[in-house]
């Protein structure tokens, strides 16, 4: 089984260790992982900003790069959701590529979803350890485009020493929204602040989620407020390097 | 009276329908589309529906209570006046609304024959002008799914009687309780098809508002309370 790791641009640029954690988890679960070396961006910023032409160029590039993979897996609900639910529309003027994109979309998964639903990874096979309590935030695209909800929680239950505590409104958007966070900084910050309030009220050591974009938003607001709750990607916690800062 | 209004409006009508057809990509008159529509209407197809229990009367009573109506079951029609008297006597209203507790009111003509005076009530079989405090009606039918009373307007079923008084008492015959809106509409078609009512009013409990801070207050414009006498 050839699994193509879609690293995602934010992991590549901001949090490379999330990519390595994903790699380790996939290999442990028995997958043969390939990392197409020329991958960059899935085109989501362009698509969500109305620039469909550029989004389509990037989509074609990605389809070419991952075409020979049995699966595409991303440590991101947002980027996997882009492939799964939007590529067909991005490429709607290019029927040949749209067909290939649809086929690829059907083989595309978010990381924890792939580990649980396809590779049948069990909680006791999760390598990570973590001393403390965490709350899981359901990032929007993972939750509503990919159906990621139970999978990360199932795996987190297998992390030694870790206790999961639900915060209020775990499904409410953190306010990131890609370029929205800059175009409507004030509203975005308020949404982030609401999320931070719930995190702090939950009294956890760390908040864990599946998208680096949302992590940056939440962490940025937490730090500006002066809060020290850690913000971690679910892959880092599962792979066991959640302790390293 | 409206003829010249209509004449002046023909251009707007043509323009709007023209734009609709262009938007839909329709060219020319298309008899098939009209035939399809007629066929769909004739089918009266119902959508997915929640299952109803066998005892529709019980379900109706339960849902009506959930909609803040009160329900009493009566065995026969001649018990109605005493049941009304009892209900009125037992009403607890705040001092500011004391005048709502009254033995005087109006009813639909179908209840003119009842012995109201024998129960100590002064009930007149006439429509209300809006200043009566107690209104007694029958109903066209009732819906078990939502605890709803259905009224069809007519000469003998004046709408105001269920709408304007502070207290509305409705008599529902158990054999007129049907499952849901679909059956209610089917009954209207069957019984009033040739004399379609100006109004089919579905009423589920007292008039209410949540417009101030989402706090529910009963008696917004219509009745403060709806009491149902379920007969049989």
């Amino acid at each position, binding site marked *: 089984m050839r699994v193509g790791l879609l690293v995602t641009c934010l992991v*590549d640029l901001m949090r490379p260790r999330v990519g390595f954690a994903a790699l380790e988890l996939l290999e442990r679960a028995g997958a043969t992982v390939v990392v197409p070396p020329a991958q*960059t961006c899935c085109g989501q910023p362009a698509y969500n900003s109305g620039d469909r032409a550029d989004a389509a160029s990037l989509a074609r590039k990605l389809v070419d790069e991952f075409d020979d993979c049995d699966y595409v897996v991303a440590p991101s609900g947002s980027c996997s959701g882009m492939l799964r639910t939007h590529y067909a529309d991005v490429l709607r003027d290019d029927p040949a590529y749209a067909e290939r994109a649809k086929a690829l979309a059907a083989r595309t998964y978010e990381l924890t979803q792939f580990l649980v639903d396809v590779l049948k990874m069990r909680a006791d096979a999760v390598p990570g350890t973590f001393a403390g309590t965490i709350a899981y935030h359901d990032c*929007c695209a993972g939750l509503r485009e990919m159906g990621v909800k139970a999978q990360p929680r199932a795996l987190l239950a297998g992390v030694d020493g870790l206790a999961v505590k639900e915060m209020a409104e775990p499904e409410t958007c953190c306010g990131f929204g890609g370029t929205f966070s800059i175009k409507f900084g004030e509203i*975005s910050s308020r949404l982030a602040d609401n999320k931070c309030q719930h995190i702090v009220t939950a009294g956890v050591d760390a908040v864990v989620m599946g998208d680096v974009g949302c992590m940056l938003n939440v962490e*940025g607001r937490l730090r500006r407020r002066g809060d020290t709750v850690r913000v971690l990607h679910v892959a880092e916690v599962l792979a066991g390097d959640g302790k390293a800062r | 009276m409206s003829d010249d*209004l209509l004449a002046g409006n023909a251009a707007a009508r043509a323009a709007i329908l023209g734009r609709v057809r262009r938007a839909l990509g329709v060219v020319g008159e298309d008899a098939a589309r009209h035939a399809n529509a007629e066929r769909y209407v004739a089918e*009266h197809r119902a959508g997915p529906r929640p299952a109803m229990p066998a005892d529709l009367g019980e379900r109706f009573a339960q849902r009506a209570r959930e909609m803040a109506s009160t329900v009493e079951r009566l065995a026969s029609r001649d018990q109605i006046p005493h049941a009304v008297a009892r209900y009125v006597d037992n009403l607890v209203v705040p001092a500011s609304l004391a005048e709502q507790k009254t033995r005087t009111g109006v009813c639909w003509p179908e209840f003119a024959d009842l012995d109201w005076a024998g129960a100590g009530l002064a009930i007149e079989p006439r429509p209300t002008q809006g200043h009566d405090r107690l209104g007694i009606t029958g109903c066209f039918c009732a819906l078990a799914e939502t605890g709803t009373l259905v009224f069809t307007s007519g000469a003998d079923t004046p709408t105001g009687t269920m709408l304007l008084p502070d207290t509305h008492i409705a008599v529902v015959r158990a054999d007129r309780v049907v499952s849901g809106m679909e059956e209610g509409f089917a009954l209207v078609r069957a019984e009033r098809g040739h*004399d379609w009512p*100006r109004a089919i009013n579905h009423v589920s409990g007292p008039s209410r508002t949540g417009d101030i801070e989402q706090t529910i207050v009963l008696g917004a414009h219509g009745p403060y309370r709806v009491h149902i006498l379920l007969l049989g």
Partner: protein
Amino acid sequence: MQVASIHFKERAHEKLNDAQLQKNLVKFKGKFVEARRRALTELDDADATRDYARDLRQRGLDALDVWLEMFERNATARGATVLWAETPADINRLVLEIASRHGAHKVIKSKSMVSEESALDHALEGAGHTVVETDLGEYILQINDYEPPSHIIGPALHKSKEEVSELFARKHGTPRKDDIEALCLEARHVLREHYLTADIGISGGNFFVAETGSVVLVTNEGNATLATTLPKVHIAISGIEKVVPTLEDIATLMRLLPRSATGQSISNYVDVLTGVKGDGEFHGAEHMYFIVVDSGRTSVLASDVKEALRCIRCGACMNHCPVYQNVGGHSYGWVYPGPIGSILTPMYVGLENAPDLPQASTLCNQCGIVCPVRIPLPDLQRKLREKEFEGGMRPWHERAGLKLWSWFAQRPALYGWASRIGVRHLHRLGGARGMIRKLPLGFGAGWTDERDMPAPAGRTFRELYKEAAARNGALR
């Protein structure tokens, strides 16, 4: 209604910093959400019901001309007059004409969003008529000098009871009441007199029914029932898209509308009104007019956001929208706020007059998930964003930034080189805390005004992976 959607950002800023409004919004938030969730479980198969409702609304739109003609035929056969309005101005003109024909003075209204589009109240008052809004929320706004509504179901939900209490005391000249029940009672007394003395009742129309030529009105207060039962003349105004084929279709929609709106199993009053009253009837309109309104609907129908016309105005999308919950309805600057407003407002008043609305969404899709007729609201927002981008309506720096990013992303080697330099630089900016308080050259000020920007780790995944692979001798 004046269109103020161009000022979305400024207004949102104001509202985010309005302590009273924020308190009111917190009270509002959540109640409808939980109630809706619970109410939908009463339907044995809520999802199938929603699919069915989506399909039946779409069926109505796919042959809209046919259904409208059928509606007109049946309405006319039962004694009503069907009039067509192309523009908001047409609506007002037609209503004024009807009023003068009947020598009417006092007009009572139950809630009609379409009449908000055309500012009908002002037109009527301008022509010397007395207008009284009867929906309690609309009434509150009317006596507060026509404050605009902030929500399509609860137009005055942004106000606290203290604000209403102060308003009533001032406008009614009565002593201040401090509980909500007393306030409602006071409004009841004032409005009851108006019902009994009005010449014309104007309603909106939740739906038109083609099969019978009827209008369906849904309220909890019963105000629409009163306003259409007591006056001699009834005018029902609504958009052409509100036509639904059959009464059975209404039955399905009524399983969803109240549940999605307020979490009720059914609204207290659901009226199906057809034609004029019959012989010997005491109550009921003697003259019935329908005004069916285009006012932008046909251009939506011709566009790629046409699915928005399925909307049944339940308000669930705004109740669940995190942006709406925080900035409130007034920020959107026109009749329809929230996610559905972000589509309809630009379509009805022009994208150039509401350029921020399709952008002011995180695309979190909470709205799309709850919409009872499954309108893919974020997809439609994206479609409008495309129009803005293609029409050159976005600021140059936004376009330039995006183009630059996409240009690099299409050139992996250059991208690798530039990103290696970029992340090192930004990493250094993050210092010991790993947080950037302010980005250079004013970039991303929207981000850093109230947030730190976590600094990158310093090296990219691509370069680290290449090194690791080289070490392991597995470089492809």
